[in-house]
């Protein structure tokens, strides 16, 4: 019973799973839709609308047994046809208009075996596919409803099989859901779930303080406001590790950072632990490679390079870099916390004799022009973290020759490693290779790994039984409110 209000930073504009990549779609839609698989806060993959599955034909076919007695919010029954419809739609005309299709490119076709069985035929094995089926574009949608009401209607009036059903949506303002009584799993404890779109962090926090919002979800809360929230007796902070990692990557092609020694020196020169403890208030953990501990491919044996300014100076001297050399660090202009971090980084670099200047860019310009075109300074901000929590999703795009996010480096050995793991379905073997990749990248000092930032939630004390999720895919059927 009761109503819970959540502040979410962005309105994705459409609730159709095939239309968007925004995490803030997922933080709402996870309550509306189900996938064949499900991954909860513990990041374990468990049955969702499929009760079991078998990987066949060397990973080129997967057979799913579907859950029975499941109903869509409009009363339509869930069955194999719905699954086929969903994926035909995703891979077909409608999916082509959106960005999700490319993520599921491995799927060739879906075959209905019987009412409760489907086969996925793959073009090539995709080790991450089962995870991908737990979210985003793979959410199962109601065929009859969409055919009847049309695609446009579906965008703004979503129907799924999840624990909450859609009530109303006001663009740029909010979306309202209510408990779905015929949910197949644990039924929701609260009656109403309201989301409000609040993009300005301090506004969201003010709403939380004023008691008009019960939960503020990431990436909203600026670190600077954490003490404010902690000091307020009615609200609190909860956090969990997240996939999001921050690094300053290097221009390995030109300038002083062409030299791996210099890159290492710069890494030695920055006291990342102190930055985490002070600026980030402990809401992050140090990283040795460009991934967090939740990532598949994380190597606990890898340790970050220590803070050692003496060593840094020594390396710089070896590389022939004179004190007073300058580097430019390109960052996103709208990230207040990182802004402070990078200023601290610059001041550490100053200590080892490097003059850093910081150049803020509008996010989209940095991401779609400056980095891909290789127009960055010696260092640039990259924050990354896929919800699939698989290092391939990071490493391939960051390190493989010719990839969008890799404008500078080309290393045949790295390319080979990256390609080799993609064909392998044995998780243990893949993990091994991914760890090798991480180690190799660290050896070459391709980036200065900074930290793995927690997912930080601001929450009202009236909310009970809330488990923070790492990846914004909030499912709130267990939560209750006073």
């Amino acid at each position, binding site marked *: 019973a009761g109503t819970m209000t959540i502040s979410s930073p962005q309105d994705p504009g459409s609730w159709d799973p095939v239309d968007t990549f925004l995490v803030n779609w997922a933080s709402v839609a996870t309550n509306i839709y189900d996938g064949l698989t499900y991954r909860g806060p513990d990041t374990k993959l468990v049955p969702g609308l499929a009760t079991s599955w078998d990987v066949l034909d060397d990973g080129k076919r997967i057979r799913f047994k579907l859950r029975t007695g499941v109903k869509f919010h409009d009363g339509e029954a869930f069955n194999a046809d719905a699954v086929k419809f969903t994926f035909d739609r995703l891979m077909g005309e409608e999916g082509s*208009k959106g960005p999700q299709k490319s*993520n599921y490119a491995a799927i060739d076709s879906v075959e209905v075996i019987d009412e409760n069985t489907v086969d996925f035929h793959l073009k090539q094995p995709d080790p991450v596919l089962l995870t991908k089926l737990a979210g985003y574009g793979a959410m199962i949608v109601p065929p009859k409803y969409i055919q009847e009401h049309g695609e446009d209607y579906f965008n703004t009036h979503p129907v799924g099989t999840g624990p909450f059903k859609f009530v109303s949506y006001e663009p740029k303002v909010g979306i309202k859901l209510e408990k779905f009584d015929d949910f197949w799993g644990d039924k929701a404890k609260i009656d109403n779930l309201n989301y409000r779109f609040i993009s300005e962090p301090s506004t969201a926090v003010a709403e939380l303080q004023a008691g008009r919002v019960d939960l503020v979800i990431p990436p909203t809360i600026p670190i600077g406001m954490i003490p404010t929230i902690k000091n307020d007796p009615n609200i609190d902070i909860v956090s969990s590790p997240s996939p999001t990692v921050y690094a300053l990557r290097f221009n390995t092609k030109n300038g002083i950072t062409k030299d791996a020694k210099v890159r290492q020196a710069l890494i030695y020169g920055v006291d990342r632990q102190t930055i985490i403890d002070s600026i980030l208030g402990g809401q992050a953990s140090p990283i040795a490679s460009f991934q967090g501990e939740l990532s598949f491919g994380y190597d606990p044996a890898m340790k970050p390079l220590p803070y050692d300014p003496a060593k840094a100076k020594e390396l710089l001297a070896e590389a022939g870099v004179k004190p007073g050399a300058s580097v430019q660090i390109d960052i996103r202009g709208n990230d207040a916390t990182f802004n402070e971090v990078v200023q601290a980084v610059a001041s550490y670099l100053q200590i080892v004799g490097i003059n850093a200047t910081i150049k803020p860019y509008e996010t989209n*310009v940095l991401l779609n022009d400056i980095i891909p075109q290789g127009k960055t300074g010696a260092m640039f901000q990259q924050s990354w973290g896929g919800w699939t929590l698989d290092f391939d999703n990071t490493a391939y795009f960051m390190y493989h020759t010719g990839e969008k996010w890799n404008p500078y480096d080309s290393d045949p050995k790295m390319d080979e490693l990256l390609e080799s793991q993609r064909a392998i379905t044995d998780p243990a073997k893949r993990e091994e290779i991914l760890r090798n990749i991480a180690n190799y990248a660290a050896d070459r000092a391709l980036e200065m790994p900074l930290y793995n930032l927690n997912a930080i939630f601001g929450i009202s004390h009236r909310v009970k039984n809330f488990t923070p999720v790492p990846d914004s895919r909030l499912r709130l059927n267990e939560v209750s409110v006073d």
Partner: protein
Amino acid sequence: MAGFLIKRFLQAVFVVFVVTITVSFAIRLTGDPALMLTQGAGSVTEADLARIREALGLNQPFLVQYFQFIKGMFTLDFGRSFLGGTPVSGLLAQALPATLSLAFASMIVSIILSIPLGIKAAVSRGKWADQFIRILSLVGLSFPNFWLATMLVLLLSITFRLLPPSGMDNFASFIMPAATMGIILTATNVRLVRTAMLETLQSQYIMVARAKGLSENTVLYKHALRNCAIPLITYFGLQFGALLGGIVVIERVFNWPGLGTLAFDAVGGRDYPVLQAVITVLSLLIVGINLLVDIAYGLIDPRIRTE
């Protein structure tokens, strides 16, 4: 009158044309929406991008896209948002009243504050009341709107829990955003009213009005105010235009679902249809306000009426 309307119309066409073509062209230089839509996705191929561009109609030459937009405009069809495909007209229908009502409320707050203060300052020119009002108005100019807004929220919403910190739900929601903008506008308007009033107060007819034995308030608020209304109205009109454009920050702070928010998100997400539509609406509004101001001139000043 017909000539006047034709001229106004041509002017509107010109402004809307120049503004939209500039913005449409410039925004296309700042990044590809297809890239933006696929940002989170890893394995995006050129084919994927081409596919999305086609779906968004971006594969056509700029002029074709522009003319399609113009064509749509005549049927009030501004296309669909790149972000989620919502019809833009629907978004506008929601954002426009939100912004207009806030802008009006702010103007009203500012007018209610600045006219008596400005008149008081003018009447007591050089005395302490005048200096005090002028310095106060400068203080109002010294803090940025977002800062003032945050202070108000801390005080009224969090400390005293009187008003909602954000959103547009009911009358109470209007108070803080309108007050913030109103106070900032007042800072300049007080000076404006004061100056205009000083000019007018030196006129002979003000003396004549006093010589009739009229009370001081009748003299100031009836005879003097109406005579300096022309520059005031002109400036308020300009200000209203600027207000519509400058409302972005306030809308963000108060999470106001208006045109500013819409435009800001649209620029950020390179959502061309939304941006073009917002800009069109804004420029039409500004032309419309100019028109209203001109009509108001006639109502206020009979000399202009018969010209």
